[in-house]
């Protein structure tokens, strides 16, 4: 296994985030290199999700900046972040439950569809001719994702009827449909049994390997993450307490203390 890890693609610089008087993140810095799997771990309430939401544009940190591919962004909403090539999945499944698996993943192609939504609605309300062809190309792309995630049997099934593990896969599929540069995964293995966790790990590794996608992964459970990550950031109480390869992090005293002291 030889993987070419590239330059820094995402640089988080001195981020601090407060909600009212409560400090969620304090002076966090780390970077993510191209094509690596970078994990952010930490006990419950360590600020992992806040960190992800900052990168994703859901929260605007009071201090610090985030540099993505040489571009600094501070006041951006999640749609603008999506446009820049950052996709995410959700810890508490935010799928479009009434829609089929295919339609859910197709929504991930929205940004790739050339004319903007409003103009498309006006100019070509029923998708005839060129738009139809474009739609077919996107559908083909989506079919490759369906094949990749091995969910062919559920194409037409409304997502709300699928098992939890499968919904997680659809969530991943929707993010992949955006062809993101960076993929943010918010606890992709939460609530899964061992077999589902192994499947998900394999998909994450395959995504990283086959598409060269950079992955930023948040996990609460250390076990699986350590096996698949290139580098790991450890947060505790909103502060960074460790950063390095899984081996380095595992032997870091402060990390051991944080984990022993709180959850495990």
């Amino acid at each position, binding site marked *: *296994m*030889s993987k070419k890890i590239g330059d820094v693609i995402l640089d988080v610089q001195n981020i601090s985030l407060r909600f009212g008087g409560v400090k969620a993140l304090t002076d966090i810095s780390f970077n993510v290199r191209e094509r690596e799997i970078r994990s952010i771990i930490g006990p419950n309430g360590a600020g992992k999700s806040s960190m992800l939401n900052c990168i994703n544009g859901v929260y605007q940190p009071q201090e610090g900046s985030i540099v993505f591919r040489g571009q600094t962004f501070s006041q951006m909403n999640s749609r603008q972040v999506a446009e820049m090539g950052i996709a995410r999945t959700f810890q508490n499944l935010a799928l479009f439950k009434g829609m089929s698996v295919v339609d859910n993943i197709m929504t991930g192609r929205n940004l790739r569809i050339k004319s903007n939504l409003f103009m498309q609605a006006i100019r070509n309300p029923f998708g005839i001719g060129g738009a139809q062809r474009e739609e077919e190309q996107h559908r*083909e792309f989506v*079919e*490759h994702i*369906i*094949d*990749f995630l*091995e969910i*062919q*049997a559920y*194409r037409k099934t409304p997502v709300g009827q699928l098992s939890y593990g499968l919904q997680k896969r659809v969530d991943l599929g929707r993010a992949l449909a955006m062809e993101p540069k960076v993929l943010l995964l918010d606890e992709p293995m939460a609530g899964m049994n061992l077999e589902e966790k192994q499947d998900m790990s394999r998909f994450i590794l*395959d995504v990283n*390997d*086959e598409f060269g996608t950079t992955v930023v992964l948040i996990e609460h459970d250390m076990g699986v993450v350590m096996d698949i990550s290139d580098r790991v950031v450890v947060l505790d109480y909103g502060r960074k307490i460790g950063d390095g390869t899984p081996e380095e992090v595992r032997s870091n005293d402060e990390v051991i203390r944080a984990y022993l002291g709180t959850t495990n």
Partner: protein
Amino acid sequence: MQTTFPRLLLEQARLRPRDTAMREKKYGIWQVTSWADMAQLVEALACGLHQAGIVRGEHVVVVGANRPRLYATMLALQSLGAVPVPLYQDAVATECIFPINNAEVRFAIVEDQEQVDKMLEIRDRCPQLTHIYYDDPRGMRNYEEPGLHALDELVASGGVFATGHPGFFREQIELGEPEDVASLFFTSGTTGNPKGVVHTHANLIDRARAGIAFDRLTAQEEVLAYLPPAWIGQSIFSYAQWLVAGYVVNCPESSGTVTIDMNEVGPTYYFAPPRVFEGLLTNVMIRMEDAGAIKRAMFHYFMKVARRVGPAKMSGRPVGLSDRLLYALGNVLVYRPLRNSLGMSRIRVAYTAGEAIGPDLFTFYRSLGINLKQLYGQTETAVFVCLQPDDQAQADTVGVPCDGVEIKLSEDGEVLVRSPGLLKGYYKDPKATAEVLTEDGWYRTNDAGIIDAQGHLRIIDRVKDVGRLKGGPYDGALFAPKYVENKLKFFSYIKEAVAFGDQREKVCVMINIDFEAVGNWAERRGMPYAGYTDLAQKPQVYELILECVEKVNADLSEDAMLAGSQISRFLVLHKELDADDGELTRTNKVRRGFIGDKYRVLVDALYEGRSEQFIETQVKFEDGRTTTVSATLKIGDARTFSTMKGAA
């Protein structure tokens, strides 16, 4: 008119070049391979394989699901005079070692990463296995093992070679003879190593033709290839008969999509083991239980009509006008929609085989208007021995001998078969070959059977399990435990049954109730019960089971040879037989001997005529804890019926 598979391919490509040979669902679309495309692909593969060093007569394993390119590979190998050896794609790595070494395999052609990993894992124990080709490149990017290549490379280089040597492919095919070995099928014996069954082109093609003639199959058939290609049945349905008849074989998208794909394809010629038919029926029943009251009532009413009218209609017997009208109405309201949702609306011929099928299950499908039949055959006979004609399908027979087959029964009831489809022998195992092939060309099936008045074969058990009664009114009569047990198990209330009787004067049975079915039955009657043991000992449950037992006896008494197997006494066990307690095999078959020893007191009580017996048993839980279950079991006598000869 003897031929070989590659010659058949060229013939089909000449007859119907533009027609569809195979379809495979990929990326949500059915991708079509025409006969001309198929011939071209096989040529490229053959040339590629030749360049890679395949020599005439060598064995090559092919491992994977039903994929057009894997079937093409088998044809390519046969074109070069090599012998494809299909292995089960779900076998674990270590199970592949023996076949690969036994057949001195150098080349493995596999479907995907999963199979590659398996081959790599055993490579150090199979040193001669130097070349591995994979069809699906997914996940293979970072594999750098020597001798590992994509099938794509082979097709590409073979294509170039073919253009440079236009006559090569046909010359190679001409070198092949019908009596050459076509394939090697490994069968897993219950003990010892698997045995490689050697079949020639002539064997397989003859049997394929017999089956096609029997059911008048044409090039218009649609087949869904969803069982493992390593199983000879799949090989016959989606390879041998495909090449002879020139019909369309459809490969599902994945194992999870078979039901959806079946619906889309609408096969006309279909095979499934009984458990698949059972699973489909269960799904229908569950859906019906969830349906609205009107729909449910309609379903049950018309299924009753179907059971009354359907079988007669299917066998071409006359049916009254009002029944005909009711059936027609049922067809519009229930049967047709149901056939459609099962993906069976276009089926002309459907077969089941492998194990006994319950009469209710069998009748369900037939009464819906689906032409479900049974066949009898084994790997060693290239499948087709007996088949049921359309109008003579029954749950308890396996049909009449088809074209070219002779059957007879040996002294001890074993079915012997002589047919052009018999194996040439077991690979490198003359001893085993001699055990099954007699000098005058009969194959010993190891199955005990009887031939009924209509000439239909009926399989009753494995020969080694068939015993004899000793003493009593039926002294020396045949005792077929599995036959008796199966008959009992066809009642939904009975989950397992263990029959005793070999070297004894009468047959006694221990029965396991089906907790769910009997529980429901009890609830409908407002009978309270506290768990399995309590329910099993209810007098009403005894009555219920007694009724089942006596029905079986009545049935058995109709056959002079089996009348002796009627059940004299029975008891209902206080605990469920369980693989964790060693009472069942891991595939859920009863271990008769083990149970006989473990419950010796019960067996003795049965034969000593006691009316009840106390028993205490240890039960092991999944987590390893144990507990004891005890009960005083009531032992009942069942009525037996006299045959024509009069006895009992």
